[in-house]
């Protein structure tokens, strides 16, 4: 207990008299009590080097010079001044600062509390969070001190929550204090907060129990909402993946009417292009790795687009007007492409790295949002509107629409329809390649990558309405969100089966999809 009193005193004293007798000198002693006091003092000082010194002490690498009580840390053969970190010349007269079990325990506690006094607000919040979760009564004095000192509002809130949680478990807290501790915990509103309040179910006071129960109910409502929001987010994320996979098909199948079973393989080619680009960057210019995906996007577009143009020129153009034959021929192409990639790269998964900006996650009002997924959502929306722009606002898009709406009249107006066909097919394939760049981040890059998307892609396009880009967008997001909302109740596989059955039945009702084209063109 003395330790904590000392700590408390020091913590309170620290800001007031920054020039007080330095805790470092306490270490230059054979007396464990002195060393203990030194640890406590160091913990309270918030010195950025305190962590290193404590670690050295714990490992038996901390020495002192009896003459002037200077502290040194030994790192291998090298010696450095503990307070400044500057290298120091070797010295034979050094004595080891000893540590026993009691000291080690003090070090552990101090390391936790050091963070409470860290100059870095993030570190302080983490430390306060750790205290909240552990509900360690011993940390109360440090918390009080930190609270008194804290200026950052969000850290202060976390500290208050931690303090409230500790008060709830501390024996002998008065009823009034217990009652006033509940609101901050309720405001925190996560699973840990619920745990803290659940601990009150056996509280002797009726009022406290009632307040805790109310708090739990409030948190439960909030968590249920959050959970739903989280599922919607997962759904949007899945929907964006579906959109990426399907949007190229919306061009080749939706606009041109070509059943391109090799569409999935275009996605796969895009993913393998990403792999190749990354390998090249790793070998030649590692500094560019952060840009690898940005570089891969045009490469993937060109590779997949070129393959698409080749397929159109050599196979599909002979099969216009025979969709079922196209289906079979392109399925043959997809088998050959898969086997080609398998022969070159092997059947195993290839590792595609994530650049730094795509790894990690952040917290949005309690929703955890992974950066990778967020970028993919943003990317798929960008691709969607980019494609929209190309089709609506460029001369090429105008020609494409003209050719698909009335080929003969377009030809009569001087449009080279075979050229437009090839380029449109190339565009759809290239977009699939771009999708492959994004999907390489979340899926296994293997020769079978495309197969897992092809059925979904077709269903999305058909569900949305063939020929309607907006329909594809709506269909992808609807299916993604519905799937993820159903998953908690039925499990992933049943949710997926349910989605397939739903689409099969939906097509019976609306054979032309959600956003069907109207008019005579449909009947041709």
């Amino acid at each position: 207990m003395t330790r904590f009193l000392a700590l408390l005193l020091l913590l309170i004293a620290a800001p007031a008299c920054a020039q007080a007798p330095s805790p470092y000198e306490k270490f230059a002693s054979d007396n464990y009590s002195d060393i203990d006091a030194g640890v406590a003092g160091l913990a309270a000082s918030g010195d950025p080097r305190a962590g290193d010194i404590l670690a050295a002490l714990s490992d038996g690498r901390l020495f002192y010079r009896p003459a002037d009580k200077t502290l040194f840390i030994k790192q291998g053969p090298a010696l450095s001044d503990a307070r400044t970190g500057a290298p120091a010349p070797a010295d034979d007269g050094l004595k080891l600062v000893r540590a026993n079990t009691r000291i080690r325990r003090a070090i552990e506690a101090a390391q936790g509390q050091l963070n409470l006094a860290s100059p870095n607000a993030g570190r302080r919040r983490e430390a306060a969070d750790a205290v909240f979760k552990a509900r360690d009564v011993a940390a109360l004095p440090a918390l009080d001190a930190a609270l008194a000192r804290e200026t950052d509002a969000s850290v202060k809130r976390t500290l208050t929550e931690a303090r409230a949680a500790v008060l709830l478990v501390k024996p002998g807290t008065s009823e009034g204090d217990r009652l006033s501790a509940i609101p901050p915990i309720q405001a925190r509103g996560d699973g840990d907060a619920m745990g803290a309040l659940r601990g009150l179910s056996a509280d002797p006071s009726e009022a406290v129990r009632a307040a805790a129960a109310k708090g739990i109910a409030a948190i439960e409502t909030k968590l249920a909402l959050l959970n739903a929001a989280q599922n919607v987010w997962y759904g949007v994320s899945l929907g964006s993946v579906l959109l990426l996979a399907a949007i190229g098909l919306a061009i080749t199948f939706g606009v041109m009417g070509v059943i391109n079973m090799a569409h999935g393989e275009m996605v796969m080619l895009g993913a393998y292009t990403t792999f190749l680009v990354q390998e090249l960057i790793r070998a030649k210019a590692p500094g560019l790795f952060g840009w690898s995906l940005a570089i891969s996007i045009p490469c993937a577009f060109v590779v997949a687009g070129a393959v698409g143009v080749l397929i159109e020129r050599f196979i599909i153009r002979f099969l216009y007007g025979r969709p079922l034959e196209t289906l079979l021929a392109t399925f043959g192409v997809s088998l050959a492409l898969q086997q080609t990639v398998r022969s070159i790269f092997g059947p195993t998964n290839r590792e595609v790295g994530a650049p730094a900006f795509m790894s990690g996650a952040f917290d949005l009002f309690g929703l955890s949002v992974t950066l990778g997924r967020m970028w993919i959502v943003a990317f798929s929306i960008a691709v969607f509107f980019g494609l929209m722009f190309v089709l609506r606002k460029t001369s090429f898009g105008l020609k494409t629409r003209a050719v698909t709406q009335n080929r003969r009249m377009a030809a009569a107006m001087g449009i080279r329809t075979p050229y437009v066909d090839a380029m449109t097919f190339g565009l759809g394939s290239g977009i699939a390649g771009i999708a492959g760049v994004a999907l390489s981040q979340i899926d296994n890059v293997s020769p079978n990558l495309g197969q897992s998307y092809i059925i979904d892609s077709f269903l999305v396009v058909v569900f949305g309405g063939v020929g309607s880009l907006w329909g594809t967008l709506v269909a992808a997001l609807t299916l993604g969100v519905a799937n993820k909302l159903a998953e908690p109740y039925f499990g992933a596989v049943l949710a997926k089966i349910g989605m397939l059955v739903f689409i099969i039945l939906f097509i019976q009702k609306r054979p032309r999809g959600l956003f069907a084209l109207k008019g005579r063109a449909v009947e041709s």
Partner: protein
Amino acid sequence: MARTRLIDPKGWIFLAALAAICVIVPLLNLGFPPGSALHLPTYLVSLFGKYLAFALLALALDLVWGFCGILSLGHGAFFALGGYAMGMYLMRQIGSRGVYGNPILPDFMVFLNYKDLPWYWLGFDHFAFAALMVLAVPGLLGFVFGWLAFRSRVTGVYLSIITQALTYALMLAFFRNDMGLGGNNGLTDFKDLLGFNVQAQGFRVSIFVATGVALAIGYLIARFMTVSAYGKILIAVRDAESRTRFLGYRPEHFKTLAFTISAMMAGVAGALYVPQVGIINPGEFAPTNSIEAVIWVAVGGRGTLVGAALGAVVVNYAKTVLTGVMPDAWLFALGALFVVVTLFLPRGIVGTAMEKFGGRRAAATLPPEPEIPPQLAEEGQGS
């Protein structure tokens, strides 16, 4: 048009060849001792039996694709369902000879802590019931699916895509352990069928002959359906659905019937396939398998029945040989086959032969070959 004979010359050739195979293969296997130069190993008998089962599946597919223009990319589902019905019977026949020795529950159920047999397993200990289910389950699914789809006039590509979704959904469902059908391991370790040991040489030969007979019967049924007045309308539906409807027929009725019978034939094919390969698992539902079956029909000749059976045997024989010699080359070959056949041999082997040697009458029943220049694509047929 004069009445078409039930069995035309190519039909006689087909049936004669089938009969010859059903005599020669058993003879070579049973009549000569192992080691003799003329002996046919039992594993080859089963392999050929497998080809015949595939031929029956191709025949079923040709009935709907060749004669009413329904390109089903989900016929593997009916095949697998028939196979599962047979597999369930075979599982029940194991009785207490399983690893866990449970007289009622198959091994995987004991392993998954089932207490009782699920209700849908009841009755599968009787062969007659299982045989009925082999027909009824695929038939019912085909009927319901076809009735829904054709009534809503879902045609062409849309139909192909939803048949593919159907088999995909079934594959996912059968992969689940909770389905009570063995999960991804499927059903295997069969012991006997109607009291005969499924591993025995005599059984292997018998089931081979049974498959051959089933193929012949399937051919006759399909042939009967397509040359009858019903078949004429079926062909009319294939070539001009709207016009047939305006003439007062109900295309959906004709299509649903054909689809249902085709599904039942595929189910029988699956049921005959399972005892010969000794396993049925959800992989049989994979959409790729169904598409592969389509290429058998395309290679042999769509709308010729005999061609479909021939195509199945030829392509599968090539698969066996190629995967043995150069495993990597098989997918290239299959992919090339898809492209070459659709581009250069749109009528398949038998269809091309009929066109060359069979005269105008024979060619008239074949699906029309669209000769549309690409510039006029959007005026082309809808399917």
